[in-house]
């Protein structure tokens, strides 16, 4: 909760500082995207002698919405919230987000840079008996293409990297005293969405 508060505070401070120097008239902006988190995992096969490893591919559904202020013609800041369905964790990231047009062109297509940093919460996650899943820090830089419409809305296609931490404490087996899993999800997020 403290982390969420800090993230909000940071966003507000950012908005405030930019508003002071703005020439352009700030307006509300929303970017809503849906896509997949692509990745893989390499793990030790339990009890294998000699130790051997196995590779598996991973794909998780992600939806995300950015609500913010278009402070300058090229810069928008706001709050990014979403849902990430990892195989055994449903996390709700709440993050401070920045969207910046990297190309100055007046053409319909623009390249944008995105950055979201925040915390993934476990609010919607349901644990199996004996398990306790905790969320963790989230960081996601990326780039995207903005295809503008005449109406001022735009279609988005983005590619970003996402790092999400989590921790799971597990039920104890015979003779065990403590058991937990530290997770870092490193994923490539490919998303499609709209901006208005």
């Amino acid at each position, binding site marked *: 909760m403290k982390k969420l508060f800090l993230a909000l505070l940071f966003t507000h401070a950012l908005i405030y500082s930019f508003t002071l120097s703005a020439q352009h008239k700030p307006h509300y902006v929303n970017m809503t995207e849906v896509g997949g988190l*692509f*990745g*893989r*995992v*390499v*793990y*030790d096969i*339990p009890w294998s002698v000699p130790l051997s*490893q*196995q590779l*598996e591919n*991973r794909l998780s559904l992600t939806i995300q919405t950015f609500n913010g202020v278009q402070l300058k013609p090229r810069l928008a800041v706001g709050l990014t919230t979403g849902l990430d369905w*990892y*195989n*055994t*964790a449903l996390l709700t990231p709440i993050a401070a987000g920045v969207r910046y047009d*990297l*190309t*100055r062109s007046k053409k319909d297509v623009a*390249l944008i*840079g995105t950055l979201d940093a925040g915390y993934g919460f476990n609010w919607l996650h349901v*644990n*199996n*008996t*004996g*398990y306790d*899943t905790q969320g963790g820090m989230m960081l996601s*830089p*990326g*780039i995207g293409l903005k295809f503008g419409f005449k109406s001022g809305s735009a279609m988005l296609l983005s*590619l*970003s*990297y996402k790092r999400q931490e989590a921790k*799971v404490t*597990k*039920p*104890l*087996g*015979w*003779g*065990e*005293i*403590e*058991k*937990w*899993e*530290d*997770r*870092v*999800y*490193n*994923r*490539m997020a490919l998303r499609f969405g709209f901006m208005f």
Partner: protein
Amino acid sequence: MKKILLLSLFSVSLLQWSCTDQCTETRKYKRYTSVSVSLADIRQGVRTESARDLINPGKIYTKGNYLFINELKEGLHVVDNSNPSAPKIISFIKIPGNGDMAVRGNILYADSYSDLVALDISNPLTIKEVGRENDVFTTGQFEGAWWGVNTLTGVINDQKMEIVTETVKTNCEGGGNGSWWGGVAFSAFDSRALQSSAPTSGSTANSQGQAGSMARFALYSNYLYTVGQNEMQLFDIRTPDKPRRSTKINVGRGIETIFPYKDKLFIGSTTGMFIYDNSNPERPEQLSVYQHAMSCDPVVVTDNRAYVTLRSGTTCNRGLNQLDVIDITDLRSPRLLKSYPMQNPHGLGVDFPNLFLCEGTHGLKSLNVANDFDVKQLQHLTGMDAYDVIPLSSKSLLMIGKDGFYQFDTSDPSNLRQLSKIPVKRVDI
């Protein structure tokens, strides 16, 4: 412009190379390695040593102004508790393979692997061995590590317990259906699961001490009752310093505790509670069995009520964590009145209408059990580990946990006041 474009494309694509989930599972567990100890060494091993710190405390026992705190497999700490606000460890009795004790008069009975030892404790600074009955217990268990005796070779086959930390790379799926380690489930017994009861007022001759109900030793009349894995072994102690092997009674499987109350014996096992009539102390007779789910199950009794806790966890592996209130007005057919959900109950002690319940790492609870159907929680102390309690008639409470030995003033059961603490000097757990 091109530069920014290229740079950002480059950096994002570079990050994609590392798109591999990194998950590690860390588990701390007890590892057992075999060791052999010779019976001859054990029988020479009993002596009094200078006071030492608590390292791995087990059961507690109180007698008069003295407290005995078991150091698992090592011996007993002798504590002068004449001032409960400032208890003082005065000596250590080294007894190899010790886990249980009972005191009557000036004689302390303790187990030493396969033997029963009688010690004269009239001077707690120089405690002497006065009697010994050889080869009475054949097997036993400390912290899940079993030992067995081989009388032919004169060797105890024991296991040494170590705590090991292990880290493996996992597939990030723990918490889903395919967990690697969670499925291993078989039952063992936890000698550290210690329970207690209120004092049974000293109706018997010679002043004797108070134990927890998880104790495997109980004194009644002229007999010392000890429970093993399957059976109850009686010792005739008419000559206090020369305990003599007496009747042996087969009880059942998975016996954990013996709790004497008036002329009855309540025996806790992993499957239920056995009630024995003890009006003939030499030949206890089974009256009834109260069955429950397979679980760790400390029992305490007051008047016509029995309180049983069921606990899940490392050694019991069932999902139940609850307190059962049982009507034992008719000892031949005990009846469950109500169950209350708990977090991870270990030992408990009753001083009617108050019940003190240890919740392991979740701390200590003070409950009011005046109404069987509406047990109220008066206080929940957290930030400490609670395993075992002994409520004393002097409105104080003795509690042992992994982090220390505590004493509380219980005159106000909704506001327990800590009198003192002897901390445990331990590296791990």
